[in-house]
């Protein structure tokens, strides 16, 4: 055995990394990259199965492309069309392989660590959960990017026939790399939340494959629209490569095929990774902030996108178009409210402890931090931003593109109605969901009930109105029944009536749902704040009691615990003296809890507090426990 060295003691200084500037951080990316990424890449590239997968999948792609392309070439199609078919076949097969393999592979990333027993070692290093998750994500992403590189020579077959260009190929790979993001992120998110690798893989495929199928179908359908509107000729899901290659600098193409897919992909990946980080982070830590940052970015990006999309409408369609876009995005954003209805009454303990030593700004930010009440406040801000933000952006875009439009007043009124109505409904959903979460102690149940209630409120007033007066819905244009005004969708109906009938005065009708849902939101908000205050008080009282009890017990108890079952002494003495018959009697005569440690508390006289322990050379063992906390930092 080697002698211990001085160097072993050096890492003592290591612990939390020192704060670094942006330059140093960027340098660290190349000099000292994420260790998980490096380790994962090493491991995967040394796995024989992966190398075999590369060979086999590339061969399969080549065979299919040649087979299908050969079939196409044997017909009477011109070579350029055959080339395009081969191009679409190649990218479609590559997409299918990625959709099947990438989520499944990523779904093993953290569950596998748990199953082989390395996860705890990783957690105990104190590594930031975000770094762990990003390392896993980047490693899986890099591996499948490598798979795409291995596939890439096969697409060269399409060049033999013409009809495609290198730009198409590059843009096709860009599309695949975009699709790869959510596929891998979903797998990582599931592996962070689940314990079983099998379940994780299964769920990843069950969720992603239908989602990818639906997305590809939609994309293909948009291709037909593109043929009509933009005059593109390519068919199949990868038509966008031609549109982007030929019309990249056109605003509509740039926005709809360049910015929008990037934004949507980035938001989906960010959300899934935030979910993964929350899954890795212990319950005592702040899990909600990653979602809050995501929501801020998502809503801000949405405002920009809405502005851009509204500018694409022509003069004739812009009033209805702007209202339609805002109505759609606002409805989607209301669902965000339920995202923030999953917090326990009090903030995580470790976050609260850290918060005590932070500055004023951090304490101010804490008003919107983790815990039910602060998260409800933050959620309220997001709901307002997600409803009024797109409305404002849509209105401004319309005014900006057509400053002299004669329908601005109606469109503005309609946008105001939608924003105010959605805001009230969103706030109600948020506060009601938060209150349910505290009462039911279940995030899933609270969200399901909140959304079901919303759905019920959307439908039941119509049914009730018809039951009361069967003809009440026939004259909605002129007179909307009061009950129907209470549905969450009444702001949309009002907005449509304002735009269609040029009746700006109907703007005031939105006051009914706004007052109704606003009052309900306020009511549940008050309940939430009151409940949180009560829980905080109760927990503080319990903590004081527990600490007092622990201190009293610690003062009484020596660190040396004498053997608890003194009957063993008597038993063995009995054995030694040959009185075996009494053994069972002696044992059964003891009360059931005689061996519990509690019975030894009163036996402190058998110990000798303060005496030194010759065997260890230490006096700590026998010191009364009450003396020891002097060396401990207050916690």
């Amino acid at each position, binding site marked *: 055995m080697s002698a211990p060295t001085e160097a072993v003691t*050096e890492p003592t200084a290591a612990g939390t990394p020192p704060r670094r500037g942006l330059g140093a951080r960027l340098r660290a990316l190349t000099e000292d990259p994420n260790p998980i990424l490096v380790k994962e890449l090493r491991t995967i590239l040394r796995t024989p199965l992966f190398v075999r997968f590369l060979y086999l999948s590339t061969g399969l792609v080549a065979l299919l492309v040649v087979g299908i392309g050969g079939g196409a070439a044997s017909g009477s199609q011109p070579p350029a069309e055959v080339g395009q078919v081969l191009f679409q076949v190649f990218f479609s097969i590559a997409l299918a392989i990625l959709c099947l393999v990438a989520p499944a592979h990523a779904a093993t990333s953290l569950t596998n660590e748990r199953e082989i027993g390395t996860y705890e070692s990783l957690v*105990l290093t104190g590594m930031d959960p975000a770094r762990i998750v990003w390392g896993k994500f980047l490693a899986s992403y890099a591996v499948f990017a490598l798979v795409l590189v291995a596939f890439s020579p096969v697409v060269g077959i399409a060049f033999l026939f013409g009809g495609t260009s290198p730009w198409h190929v590059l843009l096709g790979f860009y599309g695949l790399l975009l699709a790869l993001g959510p596929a891998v992120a979903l797998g990582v998110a599931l592996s962070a939340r689940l314990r079983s690798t099998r379940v994780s893989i299964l769920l990843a495929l069950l969720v992603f494959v239908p989602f990818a199928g639906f997305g590809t179908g939609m994309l293909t359908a948009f291709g037909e629209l593109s043929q009509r509107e933009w005059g593109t000729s390519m068919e199949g899901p990868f038509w966008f490569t031609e549109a982007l290659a030929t019309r990249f600098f056109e605003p509509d193409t740039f926005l709809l095929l360049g910015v929008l897919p990037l934004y949507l992909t980035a938001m989906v990946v960010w959300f899934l990774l935030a979910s993964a980080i929350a899954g890795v982070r212990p319950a005592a830590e702040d899990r909600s902030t990653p979602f809050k940052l995501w929501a801020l970015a998502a809503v801000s990006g949405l405002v920009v996108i809405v502005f851009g999309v509204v500018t694409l409408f022509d003069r004739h369609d812009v009033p209805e178009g702007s209202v339609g876009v805002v109505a759609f995005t606002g409805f989607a954003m209301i669902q965000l409210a339920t995202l923030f209805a999953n917090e326990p009454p009090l903030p995580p*303990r470790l976050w609260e402890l850290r918060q005590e030593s932070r500055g004023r700004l951090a304490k101010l930010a804490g008003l919107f931090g983790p815990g039910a009440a602060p998260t409800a406040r933050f959620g309220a801000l997001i709901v307002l931003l997600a409803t009024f933000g797109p409305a404002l952006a849509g209105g401004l875009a319309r005014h900006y593109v057509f400053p002299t439009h004669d329908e601005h007043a109606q469109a503005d009124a309609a946008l105001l109605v939608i924003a105010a109505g959605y805001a009230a409904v969103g706030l109600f959903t948020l506060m009601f969901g938060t209150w349910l979460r505290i009462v039911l102690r279940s995030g899933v149940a609270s969200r399901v009930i909140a959304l079901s209630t919303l759905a019920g409120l959307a439908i039941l007033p119509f049914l009730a109105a018809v039951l009361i007066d069967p003809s009440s819905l026939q004259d909605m244009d002129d007179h909307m029944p009061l009950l129907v005004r209470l549905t969450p969708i009444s702001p949309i109906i009002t907005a449509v009536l304002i735009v269609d009938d040029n009746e700006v005065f109907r703007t005031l009708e939105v006051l009914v749902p706004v007052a109704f849902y606003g009052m309900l939101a306020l009511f549940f908000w008050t309940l939430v704040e009151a409940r949180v205050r009560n829980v905080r008080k109760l927990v503080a009282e319990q903590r004081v009691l527990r600490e007092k009890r622990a201190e009293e017990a610690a003062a009484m108890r020596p660190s040396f*615990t004498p053997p608890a079952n003194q009957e063993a*002494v008597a038993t063995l003495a009995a054995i030694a003296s040959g009185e075996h018959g009494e053994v069972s009697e002696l044992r059964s005569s003891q009360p059931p809890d005689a061996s519990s440690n509690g019975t030894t508390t009163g036996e402190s006289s058998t110990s000798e507090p303060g005496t030194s322990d010759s065997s260890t050379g*230490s006096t700590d063992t026998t010191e009364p426990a009450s003396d020891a906390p002097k060396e401990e930092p207050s916690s």
Partner: protein
Amino acid sequence: MIRVEGVQHRFGAMQVLHDVWFTVPKGTVFGFIGPNGAGKTTTLRMMATLLEPDEGRILVGGYDVVERPNDVRRVLGFMPDGFGVYERVTVAEYLEFFASAHAIPLDKRKRTVEAVMELTDLGPLRERLVSAMSKGMKQRLAIARTLLHDPEVLILDEPANGLDPRARIEMRDLIEQLQQLGKTIVLSSHILTELSDMVSAVCILEKGRVLASGPVDRIGQQLRPEQKVARAVKVRLLSYPEGCDAPFRELPDVAHVERGPDGFLRIAYHGGDETVAAIVARAVGAGLKVVRVEPERDDLEQIFLEVTRGELQ
């Protein structure tokens, strides 16, 4: 160094720990022993911040494991029972990975890994894939991993589990060396003879309750307050002449003398080491050629058997 105060824990309806108290002094090798299902691993996992106690508190290096887990992790190295290793990396890569995960600065990382490999005798295996290592070497690698951030406390859950005799001896040597470096080491093990050579204090747990804790010799004394309990030594002689057991029977503290299955003399006695010394003196005085005197049971084994009931939890 470690204080466990009134810890209780339950898994569902099952209470696995009942009011557990013990202290681990700084610089000691502390044995944590008990039958299967006693709650040893649960307690160790709590000490390592991987589980939270339902009641009570645990301080490691003065930090509360619930309120300051990150500080606890900085002063603690934990090797769980049934730990896993990354198979397709080399020993050096494995340790560099964990050194990086511990945020050891890049300029110190290589030196730290080298030093830890030297300490654990893994230097010659630096380029070997972990998958190609024996279990004993993997165990050694796991300990090396826990040493990277130079923790003051090491918690090793069943470190000798499944090792061959040579690997066990090497593991014991390594633990002794770590103790010399001033580390506080908590060991849980079923192999009591192994522990008895290393530990100076123990905590015996059964059915989630502490039966005894403190220095081994003090627990022994507590169990034999009036030396009423018979213990036994095996006395091996070069030859066993007729009546060789008679001199021992005359000793006042000797309870019983008999011939063991392979010929040795089994002498049951009351009292402590003085009685053993008297037995040896009597043998020499009687002209018997003593080859070896050994306790029938190791101290720790004896204590363990005496304080536990062997009931299943």
